[in-house]
């Protein structure tokens, strides 16, 4: 099988926590955070390589499921926003329920793309 092409820099690693199913983000210290603002942003190929190998390793040792890297834009506040709308949803929560998900928990997040 062809290896999927890595998205362009800068990027972050996200996954679903095995126990809770919650979306989590890889941090600089090699742990996971539920707050996207605390995600490690890979701005160079070496860090991106590291995140990709951590994705494989943490799935293998059953910390998380569905771990993959996505390209992001970095806001003035330094927080990453995924460039694709699908992963933007993962960092926010259901757009029809602003009271649920990360958008409610971490209220500083940027709002959803309006319809």
């Amino acid at each position, binding site marked *: 099988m062809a290896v999927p092409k890595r998205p362009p820099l800068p990027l972050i690693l996200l996954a*679903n926590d095995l126990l809770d*199913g919650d979306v989590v983000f890889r941090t600089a210290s090699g742990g996971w955070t539920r707050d996207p603002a605390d995600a490690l942003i890979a701005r160079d190929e070496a860090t991106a390589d590291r995140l990709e190998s951590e994705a494989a390793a943490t799935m293998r040792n*059953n910390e998380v*499921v569905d771990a993959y890297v996505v390209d992001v834009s970095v806001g003035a506040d330094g927080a990453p926003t995924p*460039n694709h*709308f699908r992963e933007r949803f*993962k960092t926010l929560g*259901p757009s029809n329920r602003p009271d649920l998900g990360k958008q409610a928990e971490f209220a500083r997040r940027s709002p959803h793309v309006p*319809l």
Partner: protein
Amino acid sequence: MYRYDEFDERFVRERVAQFRAQVTRRLEGSLTEDEFKPLRLKNGVYLQLHAYMLRIAIPYGTLNSRQLRQLAVIADKYDRGYGHFTTRQNIQFNWPKLRDIPDILELLADVEMHCIQTSGNCIRNVTSDHFAGAAADEIEDPRPTAELIRQWSSLHPEFDYLPRKFKIAVTGADHDRAATKAHDIGLRVQRHPDTHEIGYEVMVGGGLGRTPMIGKVVREFLPKKDLLAYLEAIMRVYNLEGRRDNKYKARVKILVHEIGAEEFTRRVEAEFARLDGASVNADPEEVARIAAYFAPPAFQTLPARSTKLEAYKAMNPAFARFVENNVTAHRAPGYAAVTVSLKEIGAAPGDITSDQLRAAADLTERFSFDEARISHHQNLVLPHVRQDDLFALWQALGAAGLATANVGLITDIIACPGLDYCALATARSIPIAQAIAKRFADEKRQALIGALGIKISGCINACGHHHVGHIGILGLEKNGVENYQITLGGDATEKAALGERLGPGIDGEDVPEAIERIVAVYLAERREGEVFIDAVRRLGLGPFKAAFQTLTGQEARHAAA
């Protein structure tokens, strides 16, 4: 209602225990995700965008108050205070934690519910007419048939590893409210024209998704006693010859399409002749035992027309509107079937809060012989209400935020979870439904437009049945943004038809305006008493396309070309 026997009970409990052990091993790390995934899917556990999701089977959509209350308990204790009714008469919880799911399954088992065969390549929850046992136009209650199929298909060893998932729907009335022609197998109860004996019309190969197809009749009349043997013959032909090489060609509709309905029928009939029917068909005693569970409740002898109801209607226009839209004729004089809309303007179609589940449970007990139904339109039904009680019921529904009087109208929209929840989605569905409902919120305008079904899916899998919507909306991705294709002319009933595309995809924010223009053509062109779908059939796509293209600018480009 059907009650679990000891065998069912023991089996479900054992299954919960097995799954608890599997979850424990997963959490300890002795099962990998690749090993665990098929096990969790066998118990209805998916991984969605934000969390796990649990899909609970509601066989043929029938529930009692105890079950509704237990769902409310689960919603409060293990989820976020709400659930989502799906287009296949199931309920989904969107936020369960993996470690809690065995406990949830235990709570479900306490009320004879489970998640078995709500996922995977097996025979899924058997669906049926939500007015079963109540509808005035019914030939026979389809639920004993659905229950028989449920028992036969539950953990049937031969059909546990089919090429793909398999969905069966049964209707017992002439008017098909169960979308039988959009199912892998559709069964229609009917009387033989000469003998008046009851039997089934059997349709195979319907389905939506990537390659939508309308089911083909393979047997015009199947005697009732031969049901299971005939189904077994169909399943065998499919199991052996369905395509396992390509997931997108693995549904039975592709097999029927590739070899032709005639050849498919020939193979089924040959298999049917070969197999030992007597060893497969249900024992008549067992059939009678099951049927007894669905015996009609003890209806009172009442006049056909309730003077009390007429008086309340005359006094209260809002109530009259509710009766007009949400109340359906019942087979028993003096009774009515009530559809409780889960499509309040601005709400997510099919979502219900735990408080509403409890209110529905109370009203089910008080007014409907402790029976409720889920419809594939994502609404709740109280099937057996005395007409004399309708006003009291309506008031109580109003107090629970459940009295929206829009059943069958333009704001009674079917929508799948889409990209707000679903990991497979390519675009959102719920906000589109909300935006359309808000645009058409005015009740007088809804009444003026009349019956019109909009159905929305967030990807080509078509869980929102958009192909068979009078107006269908399919959310896709185009150049990194959400994009919506509009189809027209679909129909999910006995006149089943697939909608056709009106033109190129449009942005989400333009969808309400597109619907507006389609509706404007209908209002301008309709004949006296002609409903939307009939007008579309008569007029063809032409005028609607032209109106749609004024929105997309295609007209100008065509004119210039």
